């Protein structure tokens, strides 16, 4: 009824997820394209911060609490810092944490998920027990508690803390997919051809999970951006670095909204939301690619 076209027109739906060809179909998807564009924009801003930023973000020499003007497009803080400069420099930390946590989480999830699924047995059972236990840990609470034990944390530490609570999701999904692929004939065919375990994992199984791995990566990025911002908002992590989260912390601390300084509070929130949405959009795009049923053809 819903999926009739692909069922009977072509004999099989075309398989997506080819090693390097995954990028091109992704860019054909409008959602993913928007997401990638937003992400690239922030990436450029972070890279070019020294060039783009009009002032040093730490300078407290301007008129405090000034509303947006030609000199200060986004106004100034209560202590007289230029908010635009802070916003530009502040792009770096969320990006670093997001990519760091995304990378770490994905590496662990891939390692545990694929090996558990492929090798099975007691090894699998133990890994899955650990995974399930970590899975039911309440993420934000653990992150907050760990960060509170760490007096001051750098970006890598925050990425690590986020990784602790986010890896089991991916590990479970990737294991399930590995089990699914393991039962496919091409893996058996590779074994019969004489392939060794290492090649099975990295040349046969892994390349067929690129979209899942990517989706895990971007989901973690989204989670990391929001979590890192929340941590800083709570005054955990290092609030003295310049980042969107710390701008929000100081804004909230100075009752920015109550004194009407919306230009201090709104931009960092929008930026976090936009970066998060970029990751979410890329993810939706990947979902639609891998599950053709979710795709809705324009008439």
């Amino acid at each position: 009824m819903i999926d009739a076209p692909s069922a009977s027109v072509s004999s099989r739906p075309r398989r997506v997820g080819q090693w390097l060809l995954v990028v091109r179909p992704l860019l054909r998807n409008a959602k993913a394209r928007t997401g990638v564009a937003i992400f690239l924009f922030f990436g450029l801003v972070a890279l070019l911060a020294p060039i783009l930023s009009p002032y040093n973000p730490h300078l407290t020499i301007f008129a405090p609490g000034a509303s947006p003007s030609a000199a200060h497009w986004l106004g100034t803080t209560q202590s007289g810092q230029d908010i635009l400069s802070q916003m530009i420099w502040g792009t770096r930390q969320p990006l670093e944490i997001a990519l760091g946590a995304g990378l770490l989480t994905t590496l662990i999830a891939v390692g545990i998920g694929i090996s558990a699924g492929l090798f099975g047995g007691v090894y699998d059972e133990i890994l899955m027990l650990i995974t399930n236990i970590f899975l039911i840990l309440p993420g934000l609470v653990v992150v907050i508690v760990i960060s509170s034990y760490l007096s001051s944390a750098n970006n890598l530490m925050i990425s690590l803390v986020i990784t602790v609570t986010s890896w089991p999701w991916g590990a479970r999904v990737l294991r399930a997919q590995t089990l699914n692929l393991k039962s496919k004939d091409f893996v058996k065919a590779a074994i019969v051809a004489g392939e060794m375990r290492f090649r099975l994992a990295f040349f046969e199984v892994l390349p067929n999970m690129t979209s899942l791995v990517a989706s895990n990566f971007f989901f973690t990025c989204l989670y990391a951006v929001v979590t890192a911002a929340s941590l800083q908002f709570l005054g955990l992590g290092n609030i003295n670095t310049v980042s969107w989260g710390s701008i929000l912390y100081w804004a909230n601390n100075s009752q920015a909204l109550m004194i009407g300084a919306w230009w201090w509070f709104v931009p960092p929130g929008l930026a976090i939301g936009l970066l998060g949405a970029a990751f979410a959009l890329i993810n939706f795009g990947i979902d639609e690619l891998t599950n053709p049923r979710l795709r809705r053809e324009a008439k």
Partner: protein
Amino acid sequence: MSSSPPLIELRNVSKVFVNRSLRQRSVVYALREVSLTIARGEVLALVGESGSGKSTTAQLLARLTHPSGGEIWFDGRAINRQAGARELRQYRRRVQMIFQDPFSSLNAVHTVGYHVGRPLAIHRLVPPGRALAAQVETLLETVGLHPGREFVSKFPHQLSGGQRQRVGIARALAPNPDVLIADEPTSMLDVSLRLDVMNLLLDLRTTRKVSMLYITHDLSGANYMADRIAVMYRGTIMEEAPADVLMKDPVHPYTRLLLDASTADFGNGPSVAGPLGALDPSSPGCPFYPRCPSRMPVCSETRPVSAWIADEAEHRVSCHRYHDAESPKTGRDAQPKV
């Protein structure tokens, strides 16, 4: 039996699957004391319904799984489960498999050339580089993909089902094996393409002198392909005979039902006795007992033993009806009276 020693031999091989899930533990007997032989250059067809254990037999021979009991002999030596990597690799070079589903037996991320070239590289049969590429092209043309060069860099999704199955065959041929295990190689193909793949396998058999285990659920296909046919039901070989003998004079009630089901017209009422009785795996009797139109009380109590029919070389059957006959020597008269 053939005079030369068999290339492959299953001696009383059993396979038990213990399914331990979170929820329950269940035991499935996939094979029960199965004995089979394949001589050099011979094609043996294994016919059975889904769940009969024919695919498990294929997986055992391909060493994708191990027997729970009994022995598998290859080229005069028993297969050792704890075999070293070298011995295993040697086996893999000599025994190859063609899979049922051409859509899932090729990895979507690899090219045709990769699929066919890997066995050559793994077994170091051809030096890498130009020689390997040339060998891959030759193999592709052997299986009817002309010109080979055009197919090398294609991905599976760019091929039709029939072409994919040919790539699967080329891959199996690459290490120049002595034995091909073909697990329902045509059942997923469109009807119009099946015969050509079957003919290709027959050609390979004559040109390359490979032995073949041809697995199918279709008696007519088995007859077309094989020298001998073994009929399997629920993990047991019910009957085995040269193809023409089996098609002409089937002895086992199950074989007869199978033949009947694939030839007779419909609407003459069901020819099976029991209303779909399920077999209790712990039952001591004949696996076909619950559905057998000519069953006897003894059939539910003891398992019949597979035995050769006297006077008829290479024809054996596993049925109380036959073995009960007073004088097995009389051959034809000893057929079960159905």
